[in-house]
Protein backbone atom coordinates (compact mmCIF):
# COMPACT_ATOMS: atom_id res chain seq x y z
CA UNK A 1 0.00 0.00 0.00
CA UNK A 2 1.39 3.41 -0.96
CA UNK A 3 1.00 6.22 1.55
CA UNK A 4 2.59 9.57 2.30
CA UNK A 5 5.64 9.35 4.53
CA UNK A 6 3.90 11.73 6.91
CA UNK A 7 1.20 9.09 7.42
CA UNK A 8 3.63 6.28 8.26
CA UNK A 9 3.07 5.22 11.89
CA UNK A 10 5.88 5.16 14.47
CA UNK A 11 8.23 2.23 14.31
CA UNK A 12 6.93 1.01 10.96
CA UNK A 13 9.14 0.40 7.96
CA UNK A 14 8.41 1.25 4.35
CA UNK A 15 10.17 1.60 1.03
CA UNK A 16 10.55 4.98 -0.71
CA UNK A 17 8.66 4.90 -4.02
CA UNK A 18 8.34 8.51 -5.11
CA UNK A 19 9.78 11.91 -4.18
CA UNK A 20 7.45 14.69 -5.39
CA UNK A 21 9.89 17.51 -4.71
CA UNK A 22 13.28 18.43 -6.16
CA UNK A 23 14.91 15.26 -4.89
CA UNK A 24 18.47 16.56 -4.72
CA UNK A 25 18.23 17.73 -1.11
CA UNK A 26 16.99 14.35 0.05
CA UNK A 27 19.22 12.30 -2.25
CA UNK A 28 22.39 13.88 -0.95
CA UNK A 29 21.28 13.09 2.59
CA UNK A 30 20.88 9.43 1.67
CA UNK A 31 17.11 9.24 1.10
CA UNK A 32 16.55 7.79 -2.35
CA UNK A 33 13.90 5.87 -4.21
CA UNK A 34 14.05 2.18 -3.33
CA UNK A 35 15.52 2.74 0.14
CA UNK A 36 13.88 1.16 3.14
CA UNK A 37 13.24 3.48 6.02
CA UNK A 38 11.76 3.35 9.50
CA UNK A 39 9.73 6.07 11.18
CA UNK A 40 11.48 7.25 14.35
CA UNK A 41 9.89 10.55 15.32
CA UNK A 42 6.94 12.48 13.96
CA UNK A 43 6.08 15.75 15.63
CA UNK A 44 2.81 17.53 14.87
CA UNK A 45 2.32 20.96 13.27
CA UNK A 46 5.55 21.39 11.27
CA UNK A 47 7.59 18.40 12.29
CA UNK A 48 10.33 17.36 12.48
CA UNK A 49 9.87 13.95 11.00
CA UNK A 50 12.86 11.70 11.65
CA UNK A 51 13.40 8.49 9.71
CA UNK A 52 16.09 5.87 10.01
CA UNK A 53 17.74 4.50 6.87
CA UNK A 54 20.29 1.89 7.84
CA UNK A 55 22.61 3.77 10.16
CA UNK A 56 21.39 7.15 9.01
CA UNK A 57 18.90 9.32 10.80
CA UNK A 58 17.36 11.92 8.55
CA UNK A 59 15.23 14.75 9.86
CA UNK A 60 12.90 16.80 7.70
CA UNK A 61 9.90 19.05 7.99
CA UNK A 62 6.38 17.67 7.91
CA UNK A 63 5.78 19.46 4.59
CA UNK A 64 8.68 17.58 3.04
CA UNK A 65 7.45 14.28 4.48
CA UNK A 66 4.05 14.86 2.82
CA UNK A 67 5.76 14.89 -0.58
CA UNK A 68 7.41 11.51 -0.17
CA UNK A 69 5.43 8.44 -1.17
CA UNK A 70 6.35 5.20 0.57
CA UNK A 71 5.10 1.66 0.22
CA UNK A 72 4.30 -0.32 3.33
CA UNK A 73 4.03 -4.04 3.83
CA UNK A 74 6.63 -4.88 1.19
CA UNK A 75 8.31 -7.51 3.33
CA UNK A 76 5.03 -9.06 4.48
Amino acid at each position, binding site marked *: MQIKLSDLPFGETAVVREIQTPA*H*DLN*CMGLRIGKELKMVTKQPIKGPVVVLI*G*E*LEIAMGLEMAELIVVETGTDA
Partner: protein
Amino acid sequence: MTDRREEGPEAGTIVLMLGNPNVGKSALFNRMTGANAVVSNYPGTTVDFMSGTFIESGHTYTIIDVPGTYSLEPRDAAEEVAVRMLRDYPDATVIIVLDATKTDRGLYIALEVMERGMPCIVAVNMMDAAHEKKITVDIAALQRLLGVPVVSTTAISGEGVRELAEMLRKAKVADIGAIAQRLRGEEPERESVRSCGGCGGCGGQ
Protein backbone atom coordinates in the same frame (compact mmCIF):
# COMPACT_ATOMS: atom_id res chain seq x y z
CA MET B 1 39.18 34.78 4.98
CA THR B 2 42.67 35.39 3.59
CA ASP B 3 43.65 34.45 0.13
CA ARG B 4 46.17 31.67 0.52
CA ARG B 5 46.87 31.24 -3.14
CA GLU B 6 49.56 33.89 -2.82
CA GLU B 7 51.58 31.94 -0.30
CA GLY B 8 54.16 30.75 -2.81
CA PRO B 9 55.83 27.44 -3.39
CA GLU B 10 56.52 26.70 0.27
CA ALA B 11 52.80 26.04 0.68
CA GLY B 12 53.30 22.91 -1.45
CA THR B 13 50.32 20.98 -2.74
CA ILE B 14 46.98 22.21 -1.49
CA VAL B 15 44.84 19.39 -0.18
CA LEU B 16 41.16 19.88 0.60
CA MET B 17 39.59 17.65 3.23
CA LEU B 18 36.01 17.27 2.09
CA GLY B 19 33.04 15.18 3.12
CA ASN B 20 29.69 15.02 4.87
CA PRO B 21 29.35 16.66 8.26
CA ASN B 22 30.47 14.52 11.17
CA VAL B 23 32.55 11.95 9.33
CA GLY B 24 35.78 12.81 11.13
CA LYS B 25 37.39 15.26 8.74
CA SER B 26 38.67 17.44 11.55
CA ALA B 27 39.91 14.46 13.54
CA LEU B 28 41.76 13.27 10.45
CA PHE B 29 43.05 16.78 9.86
CA ASN B 30 44.37 16.96 13.41
CA ARG B 31 46.02 13.57 13.03
CA MET B 32 47.76 14.49 9.82
CA THR B 33 48.95 17.95 10.77
CA GLY B 34 49.47 17.47 14.50
CA ALA B 35 47.13 20.38 15.06
CA ASN B 36 44.81 20.49 17.99
CA ALA B 37 42.00 22.30 16.31
CA VAL B 38 38.54 22.26 17.69
CA VAL B 39 36.52 23.03 14.65
CA SER B 40 32.96 24.12 15.11
CA ASN B 41 30.33 24.31 12.49
CA TYR B 42 27.39 26.52 13.17
CA PRO B 43 24.94 27.11 10.37
CA GLY B 44 23.91 30.57 9.32
CA THR B 45 26.67 33.08 9.95
CA THR B 46 30.42 32.64 10.22
CA VAL B 47 31.76 29.35 9.09
CA ASP B 48 35.51 29.19 9.08
CA PHE B 49 38.07 26.70 7.91
CA MET B 50 41.41 25.57 9.24
CA SER B 51 44.60 24.87 7.40
CA GLY B 52 47.76 23.08 8.43
CA THR B 53 50.82 21.59 6.80
CA PHE B 54 52.60 18.29 6.84
CA ILE B 55 55.60 16.91 5.02
CA GLU B 56 55.56 13.45 3.49
CA SER B 57 58.56 12.07 1.60
CA GLY B 58 60.04 15.55 1.34
CA HIS B 59 56.91 17.03 -0.19
CA THR B 60 54.98 19.71 1.64
CA TYR B 61 51.21 19.54 1.70
CA THR B 62 48.91 22.23 2.97
CA ILE B 63 45.71 20.63 4.16
CA ILE B 64 42.55 22.66 4.42
CA ASP B 65 39.80 21.34 6.62
CA VAL B 66 36.65 22.25 4.74
CA PRO B 67 33.27 22.49 6.51
CA GLY B 68 31.14 19.41 6.05
CA THR B 69 28.67 19.42 3.22
CA TYR B 70 26.11 17.00 1.84
CA SER B 71 26.35 18.22 -1.71
CA LEU B 72 27.93 20.84 -3.91
CA GLU B 73 24.64 22.65 -4.30
CA PRO B 74 24.88 24.68 -1.11
CA ARG B 75 21.90 24.91 1.19
CA ASP B 76 23.52 26.82 4.05
CA ALA B 77 26.54 29.01 4.81
CA ALA B 78 28.80 26.10 5.77
CA GLU B 79 28.10 24.38 2.48
CA GLU B 80 28.70 27.62 0.61
CA VAL B 81 32.17 27.82 2.15
CA ALA B 82 32.87 24.26 1.06
CA VAL B 83 31.80 24.95 -2.51
CA ARG B 84 33.78 28.19 -2.59
CA MET B 85 36.91 26.38 -1.42
CA LEU B 86 36.61 23.92 -4.30
CA ARG B 87 36.22 26.82 -6.70
CA ASP B 88 39.10 28.82 -5.20
CA TYR B 89 41.55 25.94 -5.37
CA PRO B 90 40.86 24.29 -8.70
CA ASP B 91 44.29 22.64 -8.74
CA ALA B 92 43.97 21.18 -5.27
CA THR B 93 43.96 17.50 -4.44
CA VAL B 94 40.81 16.43 -2.61
CA ILE B 95 40.66 13.91 0.21
CA ILE B 96 37.06 12.74 0.19
CA VAL B 97 36.27 11.50 3.67
CA LEU B 98 33.49 8.91 4.03
CA ASP B 99 31.96 7.49 7.17
CA ALA B 100 32.43 3.73 6.89
CA THR B 101 29.01 3.17 8.46
CA LYS B 102 27.33 5.50 5.94
CA THR B 103 29.30 5.04 2.76
CA ASP B 104 26.38 5.44 0.36
CA ARG B 105 25.64 8.94 1.56
CA GLY B 106 29.30 9.91 1.31
CA LEU B 107 29.56 8.55 -2.21
CA TYR B 108 27.00 11.10 -3.37
CA ILE B 109 29.32 14.02 -2.63
CA ALA B 110 32.32 11.93 -3.67
CA LEU B 111 30.92 11.57 -7.18
CA GLU B 112 30.00 15.25 -7.29
CA VAL B 113 33.64 16.11 -6.53
CA MET B 114 34.90 13.57 -9.06
CA GLU B 115 32.70 15.14 -11.72
CA ARG B 116 34.71 18.34 -11.28
CA GLY B 117 37.80 16.58 -12.55
CA MET B 118 39.91 17.23 -9.48
CA PRO B 119 42.50 14.66 -8.41
CA CYS B 120 41.06 12.77 -5.46
CA ILE B 121 41.72 10.10 -2.93
CA VAL B 122 39.02 8.53 -0.77
CA ALA B 123 39.45 7.97 2.97
CA VAL B 124 36.91 5.56 4.45
CA ASN B 125 37.04 6.80 8.01
CA MET B 126 35.50 5.52 11.25
CA MET B 127 36.46 1.94 10.49
CA ASP B 128 36.40 1.23 14.24
CA ALA B 129 32.73 2.22 14.45
CA ALA B 130 32.00 0.08 11.41
CA HIS B 131 33.71 -2.95 13.00
CA GLU B 132 31.66 -2.45 16.13
CA LYS B 133 28.47 -2.41 14.11
CA LYS B 134 29.61 -5.46 12.12
CA ILE B 135 29.79 -3.42 8.93
CA THR B 136 32.50 -4.33 6.48
CA VAL B 137 33.58 -2.07 3.65
CA ASP B 138 35.18 -3.69 0.63
CA ILE B 139 37.98 -1.17 0.16
CA ALA B 140 39.54 -3.02 -2.78
CA ALA B 141 36.22 -3.20 -4.64
CA LEU B 142 35.58 0.48 -4.02
CA GLN B 143 39.03 1.32 -5.35
CA ARG B 144 38.48 -0.80 -8.46
CA LEU B 145 35.11 0.81 -9.04
CA LEU B 146 36.15 4.41 -8.53
CA GLY B 147 39.60 4.13 -10.07
CA VAL B 148 41.13 6.39 -7.41
CA PRO B 149 43.04 5.31 -4.30
CA VAL B 150 40.82 4.30 -1.39
CA VAL B 151 42.29 4.05 2.10
CA SER B 152 40.57 2.89 5.27
CA THR B 153 41.29 5.02 8.31
CA THR B 154 40.36 5.39 11.95
CA ALA B 155 41.23 8.98 12.79
CA ILE B 156 40.81 8.69 16.54
CA SER B 157 43.31 5.84 16.83
CA GLY B 158 45.46 6.95 13.91
CA GLU B 159 45.03 3.72 11.98
CA GLY B 160 45.58 4.14 8.25
CA VAL B 161 46.54 7.80 8.56
CA ARG B 162 50.14 7.21 7.51
CA GLU B 163 48.96 5.18 4.54
CA LEU B 164 46.61 7.99 3.59
CA ALA B 165 49.49 10.47 3.74
CA GLU B 166 51.65 8.21 1.59
CA MET B 167 48.88 7.66 -0.92
CA LEU B 168 48.22 11.38 -1.35
CA ARG B 169 50.69 11.63 -4.19
CA LYS B 170 48.80 8.86 -5.99
CA ALA B 171 45.58 10.86 -6.00
CA LYS B 172 44.13 11.03 -9.45
CA VAL B 173 41.28 12.35 -11.50
CA ALA B 174 38.41 9.91 -11.61
CA ASP B 175 36.89 8.95 -14.93
CA ILE B 176 33.15 9.25 -14.39
CA GLY B 177 32.38 7.47 -17.65
CA ALA B 178 34.55 4.53 -16.64
CA ILE B 179 32.86 4.37 -13.23
CA ALA B 180 29.45 4.25 -14.91
CA GLN B 181 30.69 1.51 -17.22
CA ARG B 182 32.03 -0.54 -14.31
CA LEU B 183 28.71 -0.10 -12.50
CA ARG B 184 26.97 -1.55 -15.55
CA GLY B 185 29.34 -4.48 -15.36
CA GLU B 186 31.38 -3.52 -18.40
CA GLU B 187 35.13 -3.15 -18.32
CA PRO B 188 36.38 0.18 -19.63
CA GLU B 189 38.91 0.06 -22.44
CA ARG B 190 41.96 0.92 -20.42
CA GLU B 191 41.54 -0.65 -17.00
CA SER B 192 44.09 0.82 -14.62
CA VAL B 193 43.99 -2.14 -12.25
CA ARG B 194 45.29 -5.03 -14.25
CA SER B 195 46.32 -8.28 -12.66
CA CYS B 196 46.40 -6.86 -9.16
CA GLY B 197 43.57 -7.31 -6.72
CA GLY B 198 43.75 -3.74 -5.53
CA CYS B 199 45.57 -3.92 -2.24
CA GLY B 200 45.93 -0.15 -2.30
CA GLY B 201 49.69 -0.36 -2.38
CA CYS B 202 50.08 1.21 -5.78
CA GLY B 203 46.89 3.24 -6.02
CA GLY B 204 45.77 1.08 -8.89
CA GLN B 205 48.48 2.39 -11.20
